[in-house]
């Protein structure tokens, strides 16, 4: 495991290009593009204001830089550094900005969610989409980039509009049976759209691509409902994490619950803890393997009871992540913030509980192997795989506190983001055999 030197970044804006060749970072109002392997600066662009949001286009040729305060979006080209593009939203304001899947359109959401402006870089044409819904996840593109689902709200009713991304043609527009639509997500195969209600009501609706309601799922009523939703990569399962600290798995054939994962404060299963106690230290002189506490059964996980009077309490399953090979699901329960639970999707049982010394800030699966990287805000990087887990100290002077991390899409490396720094971690190739 090798660590690169530390670079500056601001706003946690640091992204690898979709083709994996370049790394773009924002430092205040500058955009720095480096080569991933050598980390040499290839391009340097200067924007008009502090960059709030940065995004690569899908073909890795352009980078979008949005400055929400100024209401500006600037687009830079890698092939032609002289090329420039500036979109000014004017006094209508800018709340969010994103690329379309084809990399030639930019969708800007105005302040107060008044409308979504679709700018075309090919034709300079503008289209407007009215009544977008301001919710947790109101817009989603299908994986192949052909369709866009948008949540709308008119006359106190929720609607979903499905657009063809090719020419922004409205394919379907239907009303949903939700009280207050909170989010929508395409299944990876692009045929099913999952729509869920706000936390005041537990309701998950499944719509087919052509707008038909396939099924409704509601586990209980009255108590706080859905907190997070995630599709498995094969589209076989839909995992629903709710405020009652449970995850329910729905299957794609009958759209009924086939499994329920609970997060009790006391873990009794031996199999779960056996993974936690199984340590494999990597053979590398740079590593400083640090053994976390080995727990003996039954394991007691520290629970932080949330304030009952406040809204959006810190309780329930807020993060769900499927591994790329579909075998594992990693969950985090908000009132046990220092533990990450890994579930085996083949056996539908608990595989491991990774208990850390402080609250887990971020975890992400390796896009190619069943390997989970997580960080808790201290100077260590934690890796878990079915073979074992390891904690690695990031070897930088002055202490590098890992706030978030991102896997490189293909290169077997991790990007670690601190508060104002970033660092790359290259895994060794022999780990692939483990």
């Amino acid at each position, binding site marked *: 495991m090798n660590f690169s030197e530390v670079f500056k970044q601001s706003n946690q804006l640091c992204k690898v290009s979709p083709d994996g060749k370049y790394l773009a970072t924002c430092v205040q109002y500058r955009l720095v593009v480096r080569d991933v392997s050598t980390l040499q600066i290839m391009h340097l662009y200067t924007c008009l204001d502090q960059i709030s949001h940065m995004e690569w286009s*899908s*073909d890795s040729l352009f980078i979008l830089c949005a400055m929400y305060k100024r209401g500006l979006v600037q687009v830079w080209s890698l092939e032609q550094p*002289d*090329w*420039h*593009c*500036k*979109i*000014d*939203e*004017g*006094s*209508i304001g800018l709340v969010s900005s994103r690329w379309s899947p*084809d*990399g*030639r359109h930019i969708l800007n959401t105005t302040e*107060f969610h*008044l*409308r979504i*402006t679709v*700018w075309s*870089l*090919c*034709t*300079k044409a*503008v289209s407007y989409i009215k009544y977008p819904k301001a919710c947790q996840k109101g817009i989603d593109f299908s994986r192949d980039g*052909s*369709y866009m689902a948008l949540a709308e*709200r*008119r*006359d*106190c009713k929720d609607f979903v509009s499905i657009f*063809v991304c*090719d*020419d922004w*043609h409205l*394919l379907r527009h239907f009303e949903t049976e939700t*009280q207050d639509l909170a989010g929508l997500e395409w299944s990876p*195969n*692009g*045929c099913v759209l999952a729509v869920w209600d706000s936390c*005041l009501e537990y309701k998950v609706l499944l719509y*087919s*691509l*052509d707008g038909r309601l396939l099924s409704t799922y509601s586990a209980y009523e*009255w108590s706080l409902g859905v907190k997070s939703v995630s599709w498995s990569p094969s589209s076989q399962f839909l995992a629903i994490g709710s405020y009652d600290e449970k995850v329910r798995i729905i299957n*794609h*054939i009958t759209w009924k619950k086939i499994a329920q994962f609970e997060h009790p404060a006391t873990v009794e299963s031996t199999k779960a803890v056996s993974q936690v106690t199984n340590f494999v230290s990597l053979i590398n002189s740079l590593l400083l393997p640090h053994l976390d506490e080995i727990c003996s059964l039954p394991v007691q996980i520290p629970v932080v009871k949330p304030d009952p009077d406040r809204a959006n309490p810190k309780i329930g399953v807020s993060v769900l992540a499927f591994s790329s090979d579909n075998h594992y699901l990693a969950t985090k329960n908000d009132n046990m913030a220092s533990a990450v639970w890994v579930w085996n999707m083949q056996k539908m049982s608990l595989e491991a509980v990774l208990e850390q010394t402080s609250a887990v800030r971020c975890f992400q699966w390796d896009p190619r192997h069943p390997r989970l990287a997580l960080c808790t805000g201290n100077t260590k990087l934690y890796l878990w795989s079915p073979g074992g887990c390891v904690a690695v100290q990031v070897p930088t002077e002055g202490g590098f506190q890992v706030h978030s991390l991102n896997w490189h899409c293909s290169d077997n490396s991790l990007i670690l983001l601190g508060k104002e720094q970033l660092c790359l971690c290259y895994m060794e190739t022999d780990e692939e055999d483990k």
Partner: protein
Amino acid sequence: NPPPNRHTSDKNCEISSISHVTMSPSRQNNFVSSYLFPLAKSSYSVISAFCTEDNVLQCISYINQELASLGLCSTYIEATSPEGTGLNAVPALNAIYELLQIHRRTMSTVEALEKEQLKKSSTMELMQTSNTRLKDQLELSIREKSGLHEMERQLQLKIKTLQSCLKTEKDEVQKLQSIIASRASQYSHDAKRKEREAAKLKERLSQLLVDRKDKKLAIDVLNCLGRSDGKRGHWKTAKATASHEGEMYKSLLSDYEASQKSLMLENAELKKVLQQMKKEMIHILSPCSSSGRGATADDSQEQHHDSDGEEKMGDTSRETLDQSCEHAREQLTNSIRQQWRKLRNHVEKLDSQVSQVQNQLESNKEMIPLETHEDEMERMRCEVQQCKEFIHAQQQLLQQQLNTSFDDETAALLNDCYTLEEKERLKEEWKLFEEQKRNFERERKNFTEAAIRLGREKKAFEEDRASWLKNQFLNMTPFTDRRRCSSSDGHSALSVSNEPEIRMSSVKAQLAKSSTYTTFSTPRSSQSGAVPSTPELYRTLRLIPESRGRCSDLSIFSMGEDENSLS
């Protein structure tokens, strides 16, 4: 012996007095009166009334009758004379004796009865007390029972109240739920109202912004980009929309086809598995039924089922053909269910049979091993007995040993016997040691004396030598005093040998004188003036080899030095 009753004792006295009375023949005439005299005063008048001098014979006959009635026929009183004034003493005494015996017997029975009566009265008392006690207990338990009844009643009441509380709580919960529902609807209504307001505001705002036109939204691009897929842009036409629709349906259909294919495959697999299972189940069940185990009724049943199974076997071919047919599927599942039931029953039967057989086996096991078990036990018992005896014998011996050691004298004797040899040896060694010690002392004394002598001799020799040298020197010079060397006149250096001898002899004489000095035992440096110290003696010994000859009879003790070192 019966406790002496005052009455009988009196009677005894009376008898003795009577005997006294009858013994004396002189008082024969006054026999009756004297007989009457010592009697108790109370019965005096009765006796006197009964017998007088006149009616002696009648009295005698009466008494004889009474005796007969009492059953003492052999002891009749006889009169001495027909007039009836005298009385034959022997039968009378016998009769009296008999009567006394009777009386005694009756007294004893009376005593016994009295005792009996006492006993009975005491038991009666006991019973009475226990009766009262039990009555009290009964009362107490009755009271307790009533108390418990009371408690039970109270608890029942409590239960009732709790149940009613529970009911009220449940009702409350339902009420609250309905309240929540109503509030939720209220909330949603309010929220909708607010949303409508906000929408209106948004409309107004967008209108204003659009109208404002002060800051236009614009895009400033250096040059337009080509499309990512390289194609030209299309116009929005109806054909395009239709094509979009078509594409969407195509993708949906392809997805459904894919899932259907996978489901079909799965179905086929499962059906295969089921059929396999069915075949195997039939196979398992068919040979068992032919072996004829179990009741005949079961047999017939199985036969019937078997025939059914065979029928089903024929059907399978049909099933494979109509795989998608619902009817076929039902058939398959039904047949599977049947076979499974059969198999389950069979397994249950087998289980019961096995348990039966096991029981039999267990009981059989108990029979045969029991005999060997008994033999083993006998053998072990004998062994145990032998061991016990052995231990006992050992214990006895040990006890004997221990016991003897407690007797001090014998113990001492025994110890003496054992250690006698050792003591003898020790004594001998002590003797030796003492001898050696003495020898050592002697030799030490001699040694020191000799050393002193030698010292003195050496001194004398030195003096002589010095004087001789002086003489020589003086002789050499013309001024020597011949007078001084008169003793050694004419002596030259050649005759030195003689002179030392003379000197030695003189020294010897001197030393001989000095041998009278016996007062030194340990040479001390403080007495160096009179007696030379031991190191000095050693030194002198070393310096004068000739003196070695003198002390040749000395057994030189190596006081830290070798003999060789002296030479």
